[in-house]
């Protein structure tokens, strides 16, 4: 198998290097500290760039600079730290610069806790920056999947010239699991970075300008519409979802990340009780896999249960995707509590008490 045991955060760092990371900028915050710690040693060893920034704000703007110059770059942080990056993220989107952001969620709001959580789903998928923009967000469930996505993330970012976020909870960051670093990932054709501001001597006769300012409304609208086209393309091509056990289920669970793993155990336990439960596991959180809800063939479906480690965020996307077709319920734990499979079993058994729409 060639598997090794690796901590999630270190796997993020190593996989980013395998994905071509050239320059990392970050600021310490639990529970993702092993990401910069690992890179401070191994990225520098490879002669690449590692800078511990003075803050999350500085880090994301260093990323902006590195991306502007045409390099594969990344930052990593956790909840309040990601909040501080929102302005930088909207700038990256506005200037169409690629980068990878790893976000390792802890409990909130405010300083909250450092325990694992999924309560930054809105922060990741709806942003908090200004304007019409989207970040492509993936929410893997194992360290292996985290690695595979990270290895591909720089390609995706480059392809769309847009930030790509890998969103995991603190548990994935802190735990160790056996992984295979060598699993091949999809390769795609990438055009040259003919926008990079790396000196006109590299592209004589043409100045490269990285910018998100468009004072004339018409120009800005034009820019917004061209961004939208890109986002539509990403929606068409980058939506990822795993369908589990979706053969004529009684119930369908929607869950991502660690929560999806817990639900897998719950589904096994429910099967023992002869309750057939399927799962839609969004891997891309933006774009959200809405269309699988439309094409779902489940004649005996009693309801869809959205399960999250928060008080109901992805639920909005589930409701929009479901569009009134089925009854939707919610089960979630907050504050950094990771629910046990039995709690999910219980939520399915008492689905009626969980219905929101």
């Amino acid at each position: 198998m060639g598997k090794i045991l690796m901590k999630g955060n270190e796997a993020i760092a190593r996989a980013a290097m395998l994905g071509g990371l050239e320059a990392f900028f970050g600021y310490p915050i639990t529970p993702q500290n092993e990401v910069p710690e690992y890179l401070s040693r191994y990225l520098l060893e490879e002669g690449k760039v590692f800078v511990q920034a003075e803050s999350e704000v500085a880090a994301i703007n260093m990323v902006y600079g590195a991306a502007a110059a045409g390099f594969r770059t990344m930052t990593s942080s956790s909840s309040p730290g990601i909040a501080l990056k929102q302005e930088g993220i909207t700038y990256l989107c506005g200037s169409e610069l690629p980068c990878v952001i790893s976000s390792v969620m802890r409990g909130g709001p405010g300083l909250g806790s450092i325990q694992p959580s999924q309560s930054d789903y809105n922060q990741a998928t709806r942003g908090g920056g200004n304007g019409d923009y989207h970040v492509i967000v993936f929410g893997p469930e194992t360290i292996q999947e985290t690695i595979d996505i990270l290895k591909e993330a720089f390609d995706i970012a480059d392809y769309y010239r847009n930030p790509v976020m890998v969103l995991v909870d603190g548990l994935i960051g802190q735990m160790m699991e056996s992984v295979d670093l060598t699993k091949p990932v999809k390769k795609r054709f990438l055009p040259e970075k003919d926008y990079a501001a790396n000196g006109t001597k590299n592209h004589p006769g043409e100045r490269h300008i990285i910018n998100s300012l468009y004072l004339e409304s018409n120009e800005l609208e034009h820019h917004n519409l061209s961004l939208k086209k890109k986002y539509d393309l990403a929606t068409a091509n980058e939506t990822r979802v795993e369908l589990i056990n979706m053969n004529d289920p009684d119930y369908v669970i929607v869950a991502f990340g660690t929560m999806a793993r817990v639900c897998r155990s719950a589904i096994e336990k429910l099967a023992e009780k002869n309750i057939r439960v399927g799962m839609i596991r969004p891997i891309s959180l933006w774009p959200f896999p809405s269309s699988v809800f439309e094409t779902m063939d489940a004649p005996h479906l009693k309801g869809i249960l959205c399960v999250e480690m928060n008080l109901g965020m992805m639920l909005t996307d589930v409701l929009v995707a479901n569009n009134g077709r089925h009854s939707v319920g919610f089960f979630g734990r907050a504050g950094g509590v990771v629910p046990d499979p039995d709690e999910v079993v219980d939520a399915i058994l008492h689905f009626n008490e969980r219905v929101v729409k």
Partner: protein
Amino acid sequence: MCKPVNIRVAGFGGQGIMMFGQMLAYCATNDNMFSLWVPSYGPETRGGTANCSVIVSTKMINSPVFTNADVLVAFNQPSLEKFKEMIVPGGCILYNSSMIHDPILPEGVRGYGIPINDIALELGTIQVSNMTMLGAYLEFSELFSDATAEKVLEKYLGEKKAHLLGINKQAILRGREALRALKG
């Protein structure tokens, strides 16, 4: 083994709790099994207690969390008290009998007390008490061979701590012996 084994390890900071857990996870990986190690982390590890959990399984591990463990490895009294109620009936508690005397265990749970501090001090340093406990656990669980444990230990210690390999191996052995004696 068809069901994953859920193990909780707990003690004071400094007792080598994390290493104990990681060693198990590494052994599993070495033997092409699935394993998952989850630490408690953050400032609560500062000073106070430390704990981690390990899952070892022959198939893909789904839920990384469990409420009820099959095994508790308790390095001190407070840890025993904190976690003992989580052990499933039929489960087992390995405890450090150098620090825990005459424990009251939940019904239906077997208990094995190993005087790991004493054994470690006999070997020359309290530092190897955790590997003594590992020996006991290996003997108890029959999960991994000595060869596996030693190979993993060697890697774990690395070159810098290679000189500690011998004493750690000895500790594992002594732990095995102690457990065997208890099992009778």
